[in-house]
């Protein structure tokens, strides 16, 4: 065991360390550049931007179009979180407590679905399915919301399932039942409180996904229902600094999400 921990296959620690540094740089360099760029007055033809300004952020948060799309993103994101949670919690519970194999495989299928199904395909399907003469949902934020829920299910289901599997739920439930608790009382007082970390992790992931999601938003929304990423796409051609600022907002949402999630996992380890 000992030599393997130190010098696996003759690769020296040095090479491994180099590989790790390279990886960290590879991931961080673009992010850092975006961040720097968002504060630069002018960035064209030079290695790094010149000057320092907050102008781009100021423009971003004062222009109506961006504010509206930000609000739209928050609305769709929040609704997606709520709906996904309401769908995921009973599903996880049912799959976990049932002994049937079939249910389990159905569940596994649901979890890999977003990978197997390109968003463009669901997008074109939704556009055709909900385009009736008397009521067309095409171009409304509702349709985007429906689609986001479909793609968010795994984000919500996975942490909740992991959370539930950490508990000895079957015995907890039996203990509660033997004490005379009704089904609803068990859900309210034991199931939901004990799943709160899982639900919260799922909610954060779902929100981050929905907020930054570009592909479905591009297909499904119209100019009235544009979410932030779609509006942002148009900023690409406004100017480097402004575009950097607009993109940095998305990066921050992702970053904060991961930071908070990380907090959780260390909390959980402590318990």
């Amino acid at each position, binding site marked *: 065991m000992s030599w393997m921990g130190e010098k696996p296959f003759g690769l020296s620690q040095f090479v491994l360390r180099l590989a790790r540094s390279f990886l960290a740089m590879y991931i961080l360099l673009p992010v850092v550049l975006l961040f720097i760029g968002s504060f630069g007055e002018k960035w064209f033809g030079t290695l790094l931007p010149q000057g320092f300004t907050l102008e781009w952020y100021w423009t971003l948060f004062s222009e109506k179009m961006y504010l509206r799309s930000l609000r739209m993103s928050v609305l769709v994101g929040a609704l997606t979180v709520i709906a996904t949670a309401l769908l995921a919690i009973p599903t996880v519970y049912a799959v976990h407590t049932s002994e049937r194999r079939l249910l389990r495989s159905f569940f596994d299928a649901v979890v890999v679905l977003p990978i197997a199904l390109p968003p463009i395909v669901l997008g074109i399907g939704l556009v055709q399915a909900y385009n009736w003469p008397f009521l067309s949902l095409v171009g409304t934020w509702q349709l985007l919301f429906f689609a986001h829920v479909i793609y968010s299910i795994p984000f919500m289901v996975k942490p909740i399932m992991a959370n539930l599997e950490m508990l*000895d739920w079957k015995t907890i439930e*039996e203990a509660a039942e*033997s*004490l005379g608790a009704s089904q609803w009382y068990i859900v309210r007082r034991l199931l939901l409180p004990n799943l709160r970390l899982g639900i919260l992790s799922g909610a954060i992931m779902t929100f981050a996904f929905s907020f930054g999601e570009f592909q479905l938003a591009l297909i499904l929304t119209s100019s009235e229902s544009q979410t932030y990423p779609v509006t942002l796409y148009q900023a690409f051609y406004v100017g480097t600094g402004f575009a950097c600022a607009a993109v940095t907002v998305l990066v921050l949402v992702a970053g904060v999400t991961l930071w908070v999630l990380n907090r959780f996992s260390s909390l959980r380890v402590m318990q």
Partner: protein
Amino acid sequence: MSSVSVRLLGIAKRFGHMPVLEGVHLEIPGGQFVSIVGPSGSGKTTLLRIIAGFLQPDAGRVYIGEKDVTEVPPRLRNIGMVFQHYALFPNLNVYENVAFGLRARKVRESEIDRKVREMLTLVHLEEKMYSMPHELSGGQKQRVALARALAVEPKLLLLDEPLSALDAKVRLELRYELKRIQKEMGITTIYVTHDQEEALSISDLVAVLHQGLIEQLGTPEEIYSRPRTRFVAEFIGISTLLEAEVLSPKEGKLRWMDYVLQGTPLSQERVKLLILLRPENLSILPKERFSSLVSSWNNVLQGRVVGQVFLGSVMRVAVEVKGVKFLVDLPNREANRFRLGEEVVVTFLPEAIHYLFGNE
């Protein structure tokens, strides 16, 4: 607290094609502490879960008191349950864990507070009232679990190997505490364990479960010194089992190999039966005594010491007689006189022979 009796009538249960319980009959008088023992996989947990109502039997009825509860859901059976791995509610503190059942029943707040404190005093955990479960030791967790189960004043207390996850010292401590609380409250208690020593020391009655049936129900003393079947004899305690031929039932004369054995008179006519010898009822003498003894005494067997195990207060010596190992417990000082490989004599009183009638 009034105590209820429990009656199980012909409980059968199978999982898939595997029968686990095959018609269990068991009558438990009110207020008794009854242990169910049996090897791993014998269906103890299954039986307990059927009594609790978490499993439906395929056949048979469960009575708690005079009431047939076979179809009653667990939460209406008025039972208290303690699990092997505590099953405390991780999101609630000790106080709220104990209060859980009372709150579920919408008991008045002042009454809840009084009851929770009473229960925590009973299990000596008043000072941990506001701790969270993960801050407690295993022993403390199990005390909370017990307080929680008793807080709702159940008519019947069910415990499934509650001490097996604890270390040896805490296990002993809690064993006697459990017994004290049970006697204090006079609650009918069914206790599942695979530790026969634990069952013998704590119970009023012991039921031995084997191959889906209760092989014997009796006081610990009965189960130990008068097992009915070979299985019970082998499962409970250490013993030497011999297959003997009856020479004269009235005189209690038997033959084993070419020895004649003297037991107590037999009430049944039999040709063959199993006899049981407990190690503490046997003794060993030096070989030289054989010829003097054998003329006046029947139960004298010649053998050779093949093993010795130090057990603290006694030395367990194995003596091989005609290919069969006889286990003999001797006080340490006496055992030192015998060397490994030495030829010795094993002897015992007629009363040491216990007949097993259960095996046909």
